[in-house]
């Protein structure tokens, strides 16, 4: 009978209801699922693997302090200018609160951490941008911290190394944020004129005003695999050119193909690569000189 078709369903009296307790059995954060290949692994293992997915080599975003731990020799880092405080020059509603909450979240005063440190025993000045703080956008304090770090490198006569991660200029600071592009660049010019080395390491994402200033000005420009690097946003470009952009558009590999980068370097070998570059530029290396 046709009725049986409907009545049969009702006979299922038991259904599996997932146990609420079992859901929370795994504490928050103990496992991490890779957004690229969906590989699920222990967060601890991921951290010991420099936040690179063992499954597909996806490079997770790093916080500034994680970079310090992974890139510099242990306990050599001394932070600079972490007392500078952001103001609200255009009186944008809610801007100060957003800065405060990001500051609390990241433990940074602004979207960049600067300081001195050593890499395999060689002194350098580093600036490490953190995309977890207002998307790493550049306002007055970010510009000032980077400029002072470059000046310190110039003063000490050591290489300047920057890890960039930024959505670009900080809208809420208007034209002042635009001018930070010029400010950081003039400082780098002075560092360069003295013959000192500047290595820029572009990480995901590096776009807008940051890519159009210091990020592109390294004597050597390196990038992490698959990092998004570009001037204008993908959507903006698609709207202007009215064509589908290639899948790998504005990735580190795309830039390498188009002659815009010196090399794409895996995070696991970044420290040694940079260390070797610094060594090759040190005066002591020139044995025949």
């Amino acid at each position: 009978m046709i009725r049986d078709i409907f009545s049969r369903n009702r006979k299922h009296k038991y259904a599996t209801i997932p146990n609420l307790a079992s859901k929370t059995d795994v504490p928050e954060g103990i496992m991490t699922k890779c957004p690229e290949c969906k590989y699920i692994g222990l967060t601890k293992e991921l951290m010991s693997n420099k936040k690179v997915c063992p499954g597909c080599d996806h490079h997770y975003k790093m916080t500034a302090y994680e970079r310090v731990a992974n890139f510099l020799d242990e306990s050599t880092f001394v932070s600079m200018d972490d007392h500078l405080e952001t103001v609200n020059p255009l009186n944008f509603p809610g801007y100060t609160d957003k800065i405060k909450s990001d500051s609390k979240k990241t433990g940074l005063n602004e979207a960049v951490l600067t300081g001195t440190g050593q890499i395999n025993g060689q002194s350098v000045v580093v600036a490490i941008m953190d995309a977890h703080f207002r998307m790493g956008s550049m306002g007055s304090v970010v510009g000032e911290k980077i400029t002072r770090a470059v000046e310190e490198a110039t003063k000490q006569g050591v290489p300047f190394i920057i890890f960039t991660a930024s959505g670009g200029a900080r809208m809420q600071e208007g034209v002042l944020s635009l001018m930070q592009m010029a400010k950081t660049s003039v400082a780098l010019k002075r560092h360069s004129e003295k013959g000192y080395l500047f290595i820029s390491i572009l990480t995901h994402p590096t776009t807008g005003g940051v890519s159009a200033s210091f990020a592109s000005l390294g004597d050597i420009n390196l990038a992490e695999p698959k990092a998004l690097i570009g001037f204008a946003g993908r959507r903006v470009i698609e709207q202007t050119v009215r064509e589908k952009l290639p899948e790998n558009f504005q990735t580190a590999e795309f830039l390498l193909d188009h002659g815009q980068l010196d090399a794409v370097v895996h995070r696991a070998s970044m420290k040694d690569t940079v260390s070797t570059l610094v060594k090759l530029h040190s005066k002591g290396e020139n044995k025949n000189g």
Partner: protein
Amino acid sequence: MVKTLPFEEPVIQLRAKISELKDFTSNAEVDLSTEIQQLEDRLQKLETDIYENMQPWDRVQVARHPERPTTLDYIRDLFTDFIELHGDRLYGDDEAIVGGIASFNGQPITIIGHQRGRDTKENIRRNFGMPHPEGYRKALRLMKQAEKFKRPIICFIDTKGAYPGKAAEERGQSEAIARNLFEMAGLKVPVISVVIGEGGSGGALALGVANHIHMLENATYSVISPEGAASILWKDAALAQQAAEAMKITAPDLKEMGIVDEIIPESTGGAHRDPKRQAVLMGEVLQRSLDELLKLNEDQLVDTRYEKFKSIGEFIE
């Protein structure tokens, strides 16, 4: 007929009424001179009211006016013996930026500027004044050339921004802009930049690392267009008018922030109302600026430029 802008509509209407009345009285046998006089007084009051209280959004409209004088207009009116130089020697010639050598009151000068088109056809050729990397690389080539021959450099800034296109990205738009900022910092000759229309973001700044930065009264200089800011901040490009106010993009704003050195006054209603007079006003400021900078030696030029940009920014120490 000069295109009128929405905010000046009342003035235009009243002016039309007055000329209508005048026509009428000249043909008819009535004396309306007192009425005309009254209306003319009112017009004058209205004009001062409107033009002296221009809102940021009104200035944006004036800065974008299709008849507003462009780089080539100022070159024609202020310089003699201009010879345009083309190409970046790497890829091509970007007509969104023009550059060349000319004489300014007897002084050889290198001039570089963004160039918008007057009509649709020219705008297509010049890409609406939005440069590709080759434009910035041409500009840099001409700056280095100027440095070799110890010629001062004058840059006119007038762009919505660097072009956001696929080809521009492939050829390194970011690097081209960054390189200009970096190299301009070290130029051993006087560099003067004048924002004559829209100063849009990094695409404008790439001609703006100067010893002196001047701005026309109604020009704007911003990190992003008011439309762009509105769509990012409030997800609605229609709020551009509010964004223009909030972003502080006018000449007086930038003067207050210490970015701009001098504001060059404009004729009532904007530079397009009297381009010849505008060129004269521009020429006076350029000459004064140049006289000042020519007193400095090479190191002083580089050092003062460094200090100028180093001091820009607001924060608590």
